[in-house]
């Protein structure tokens, strides 16, 4: 927890930073993060645009019932947020962590 610990880390950081496997992993992970962010961002802004420009569409009933199209879309957005979060965590737990641990282990040994 001190600066001394930080200094001994520097060689390790340089070695890991130059490792092509690290670069590949970080690039892949960042791409996943940006893609998922773009999906949720676009979905939400699209939803707002739909509300701003075409309220009637969201008010259309589904089939002969009372429930409107807007209900599954709105609730779907909530579920999408949870699902994408879960997807990222599952992916990171399953692949990213193990791959990163393997890279770090190689350089620490």
């Amino acid at each position: 927890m001190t600066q001394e610990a930080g200094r001994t880390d520097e060689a390790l950081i340089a070695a890991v930073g130059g490792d092509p496997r690290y670069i590949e992993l970080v690039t892949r992970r960042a791409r996943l993060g940006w893609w998922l962010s773009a999906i949720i961002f676009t979905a939400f802004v699209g939803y707002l645009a739909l509300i701003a420009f075409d309220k009637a569409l969201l008010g259309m009933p589904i089939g002969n019932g009372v429930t409107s199209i807007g209900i599954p879309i709105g609730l779907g957005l909530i579920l999408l947020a949870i699902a994408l979060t879960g997807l990222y965590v599952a992916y990171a737990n399953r692949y990213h962590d193990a791959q990163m641990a393997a890279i770090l282990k190689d350089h620490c040994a």
Partner: protein
Amino acid sequence: MRARLAGALAPVLALIPVPAFAAALEGEAQRQPINWVAIAMFVAFVGLTLWITKAAAARTRTASDFYTAGGGISGFQNGLAMAGDYMSAASFLGISAQIFTDGYDGLIYSTGFLVGWPILLFLMAERLRNLGRFTFADVASYRFAQPPVRSFAAVSTLLVVSFYLIAQMVGAGQLIKLLFGLPYAVAVVIVGALMMLYVLFGGMRATTWVQIIKAVLLLGGASFMALMVLAQFGFSLEALFARAVEVKSAAAQAAGATPTEAAEKGRAIMAPGGFIKDPVSAISFGLALMLGTAGLPHILMRFFTVPDAKEARKSVLWATGWIGYFYILTFIIGFGAIILVGTDAGYKMADGTLRGGGNMAAIHLAHAVGGNAFLGFISAVAFATILAVVAGLTLSAASAVSHDLYATVLKHGRANSADELRVSRITTLALGALAVLLGLVFEKQNVAFMVSLAFALAASGNFPVLILSLLWSGCTTRGAAWGGTIGLLTAFILTLLSPAVWTTTFGLGPAPFPYSSAAIFSVPAGFIAIWLISRLDRSPRAAIDKAGYPAQRVRAETGIGAFAASDH
């Protein structure tokens, strides 16, 4: 003892530009007869949390204990605590009240409050945990000259927290007066005093447990209400909505509408209404909610209470799950209230408005489905909810003063843990006193704009600084400190010039800035200012800042050298 309820709903009203909705919620907050069941339940909650605080106090010896509970909170616990920090009484009562009045519009709100969480996870959560120790300023200033960036982050934290806190204190006073029949000033002092006890003695450990208990109580209570509502309609949403539309149509017909108009009025609750005026305000408001969530200091601080990046990740998943679930419950509760509260004359005044004001829909529904005992329970939960939120806010502001300003800027990182702890406790006392004072001063003021201002400031200052310092090698000290400040100022000034403040609060006539949220301009202003100032920065320090990026990036991605949990 009449006061407007606008304050109690500040976080919701704040962002709603539509007069029709505001009017619906501005019921008179009359003092109710003293509710003994509610008080007994609340006393039980306070007793339990103070006992936890006492236990936590014995284990709060270092700055690390105080700020981050020693880093030993699990992802699951932290996720619940984050949900407890985020689900305010206003979102419970306000969103269900909005659905009670307008139907569908409440759902737009809920989605806006939720979508920031995934973005926080995808772009920031793990990197925050890997680089930070106590406050988000640790991360924002990681490779920069400390005083300028820390000062920016501390000022920003204090601004965001102050506005959020004032809105919560005024809301707390109004709500407690209403639910418990206590005078406003007594209510504000009780909230201030309890919050100070939790934070002062129990630090992050006690605050976390207060938030966890509150989250469990709120989720449990809301689940029960939603279940009771759904049970009456054979667990069919279609049947629930159909009956709600019938009720609204019948009400419109009783008010003198023709059958066609009445049918249309009924159907209107299934579609977006007047909530969003123009596309610019709509997108701007969405940006403020979404990106502001990822810049709230008291939420970001919670990432340092878990041992590593993996638990930080899990925290967000749990938080997102619980908060999303809560908003779905609120949606059902709002529709349930239309039917069970809206058709029962016992919950209404002679003129047809709800007893106690428009935002009492969920509270009356609690009575309708669970009688007096459950009404008392839900009232106590609403009180507990406010306490948990203000405790989290105060802790993050105290950390900004003691860790960022005192220990880092003033003492150049050489303050010892005991001194730092003492400064944070003095700050907590000062903040608690200030919060009570501001709560009293603003009693009769319309503080509705303050939460939207807090979100806009967080989205325009903290968020761009964090993203660019984490992900752009070209960012420099000057760029972060001054660019972030420009983002903050833009959000601040445009909000002052917007209708909610200029016209509604100060009565200065038509607003110079016509949109309901500043974010669509102030967020890009923050990003562009940081980029431009960094680009033009030719100082020797800029070279050091840029040279520091590769190592910072590796630390952020791998967790090498991350501050570990300190177990005693």
